[in-house]
């Protein structure tokens, strides 16, 4: 705050809110366009849609934290102690979406196993332990 005069900071706030509004509109239009609502026959690959919208959201998050919350003007140590721990979340997102896809792949296996009549289950048999291991 101390680095800007009152007039400058007023102007900068208006500028940032307009950028945030534009990004939000772009996100919504991109989502609708990519799913074929705006123009027939156009459909983007889900990975492309996801990637572009995640990047736009991160830009929005950056603007809110650094401009609106004035992280830009805080001591570097404060910024690091707040922002670096959130890097753990990158691991969290990757690990758990990975895990989720794995549950998806194993649903059929679990279903088959659950529907197997009890008399067919030989406790301790090679087949049974192999299946158990697969399900984890």
């Amino acid at each position: 705050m101390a680095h800007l005069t009152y007039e400058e900071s007023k102007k900068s706030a208006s500028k940032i809110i307009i950028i945030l509004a534009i990004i939000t509109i772009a996100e919504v239009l991109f989502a609708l366009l990519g799913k074929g609502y705006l123009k027939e026959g156009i459909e983007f690959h889900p990975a492309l849609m996801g990637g572009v919208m995640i990047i736009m959201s991160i830009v929005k998050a950056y603007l809110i934290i650094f401009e609106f919350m004035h992280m830009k003007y805080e001591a570097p140590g404060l910024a690091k102690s707040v922002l670096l721990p959130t890097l753990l979340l990158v691991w969290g997102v990757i690990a758990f979406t990975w895990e989720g896809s794995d549950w998806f792949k194993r649903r059929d296996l679990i279903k088959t196993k659950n529907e197997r009549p009890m008399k067919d289950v030989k406790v301790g048999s090679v087949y049974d332990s192999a299946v158990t291991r697969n399900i984890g």
Partner: protein
Amino acid sequence: MATVETAAHNDTHKDNDGSWEGGSQPFKASYGKLMMWYFLVSDAFTFAGFLIAYGALRFSMPTWPVPDFVFSTTPFNGHGLPLVFVTVMTFILLASSFTMVRAVQEGHEENKRGVVKWMILTIVGGFMFLGCQAWEWNKLIGEEHMSITQNPFGTHTEDGVYLAGDGHYVNEGDTFVAGESYLVHKHDGEWAPLDFKVTSGPDAGMIKSQTLGPKAFGALFFFITGFHGFHVFSGIVIMLIVTINAATGLYIKRKNGYEMIEKVGLYWHFVDLVWVFVFLLFYLL
């Protein structure tokens, strides 16, 4: 001797003057502001836990309700306007973030009238957002019968043709393709799924009935947007308190550029920040 005494006296004076007990402020921030930042870090992890659970469960399901179908109603135009209402909600929250920035700026200028004016606008924005959310929840719970254990929004996994209509949006003979969403209606308190004939895949020719969608959707939606809404509500309460304090002149005496407004502002921007990601995961993707 005299110089040492003066220095000691100055140090004591400095301690009472806002720096922490150690004599100088860590990170050049006041205790309250730094702790607000660390509270927000912990809160970010709580929200991230919820959102990551959403991601993991969504990835584990064969189908997931399409948000453009689930959230396509507005209070004014009825059905068929995907994402319009939630975009309005997003804009309300963004606008209230902007008015909060302005309140903080007026605080730095020690302008009481400006602070109170912009704080009131921010509170109005918060109430408007909560009102929109209440409308959305009411619609989902009251009219569409979504709950934390039941989710009437399903997705077709095969092409087909309906053998019956629901009297609203689906008529007998309507066709659909795999990936299209539907809403199972309730009649007299009972689910009334429609029958359809499959026209694609190995089951072509079979007659099937609509099934309810993944129930995790309802639970995740209500818990995550509810937790966010609860943050908005607490934010409004805290803002009301500091606005009254500011209006009665309490912060003028502190002569610290209305720092309390700045701390509440950090919290309010954080609520906006979380909404960016709730909006992304629930509505856009």
